[in-house]
């Protein structure tokens, strides 16, 4: 049993190392998010907001990105999914 726990710990450490490496590689984080000109609290913040929107409406999303040590060939996409014909 102890041996199994030790193996799991090692696996966790390797996974963490990979994730840290990935974050180091992108070096990116969201600085700010605005929807239709207003700052919003997204999921993951203390008080996430639910935005009421009408179907057919167009939402303008403006995000600020920070790269601590720079990043290249970056792209940003925004999408609503989970409905018929969403592809």
């Amino acid at each position, binding site marked *: 049993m102890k041996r199994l726990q030790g193996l799991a710990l090692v696996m966790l450490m390797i996974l963490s190392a990979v994730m840290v490496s990935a974050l180091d590689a992108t070096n990116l984080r969201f600085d700010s998010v605005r929807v239709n000109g207003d700052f919003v609290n997204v*999921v993951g913040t203390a008080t996430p907001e639910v935005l009421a*929107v009408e179907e057919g409406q167009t*939402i*303008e999303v403006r995000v600020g990105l920070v790269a601590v040590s720079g990043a290249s*060939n970056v792209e940003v*996409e925004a*999408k609503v999914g989970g409905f018929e014909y969403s592809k």
Partner: protein
Amino acid sequence: MDSTPLFDIAAGTTKYVTLNVNVPRQLDEDNYWLRVRVLDKNTPALELTVPLAVEPSRNGLSLADVSFSPGLSVKAGRSLLTTVLLENFGKRDQNDVKVTVSVPELGASVVEYVDVDASPDKVDYEDVPEMFLAIPATAQPGDYEVKVTAEFDHYDSTSKSFTLHVLPSDLFPVPGVGPAPEAKVVLAVGPESQNVAAGKTATYAVALSNEGSASKAFSVEAVTGDWATAKVSDSLVVLDAGKSKVVYVDVTAAKDAAPGEHMVSLTVKSGDDVLATETLTATVLGTPAGPAGVGLRNGLEIALIILVVLLVIIGLIIGFSRMKKDNGEGQTYY
């Protein structure tokens, strides 16, 4: 969905990007997530989520489909048949929706009013009665914007634009554009056959009518053999469409022209194209004129007249002589 092109971010800087996401009309009245992802070549995506509560539109109308017949190429002077399908995706009925099809540059438009009910199944469709948009016959060939607009709920409207290609009109051809109008000329000659004495001139009147659809220049030529010479009063005639003009062809028979029937060939051309030909006939009379211009017949007639006059004079002389003689003999008896 929307996405940005690739870009770089320098160390220690902040870059802002803007995306426009359409909330699809196919969504149910429910909660959805708007997901924003940052991607690069080979590292895990960075993602944030904005929860959305989707509500149906109060007044929602769109142009679901627009079709044109015979298509988006039409000749000037013809009509463009437009069929519009409206989609009501809102919660409320839409009454008196004003649907306009217009070509603003040509000042042409057509309007229809239609009611579009809301459907409990979320979306309802309504066909707008077919609309005929007359393209002016004088419209210049080229590309024009066709705008289809639906105005509803007093303030809202939705529209789509298309490009219409206008072709040259059959009635008002534009010089240098489209096929060249066909040249057509009609000839009328009166009379086609004439008698002419050797050395004399016969005149033929030829009426030219431009039956084509455009103004044209016509050249008129008359060809004879050695027996005569021909001269045309107007060898070059310019006629507007539907107009006519008479030209005269003078055919002068040679003094030594052989008696009998001779032909004159009349040709009407437009550029190098022969449009019409006509054959004129001239009959040269049998007795050529004498050197003094007096024929044998005329000479005999004159001689006969002179003879008659001489006979009359002789008769008068004889008559007067006898009367004198009779008067002298009567005095002797007394």
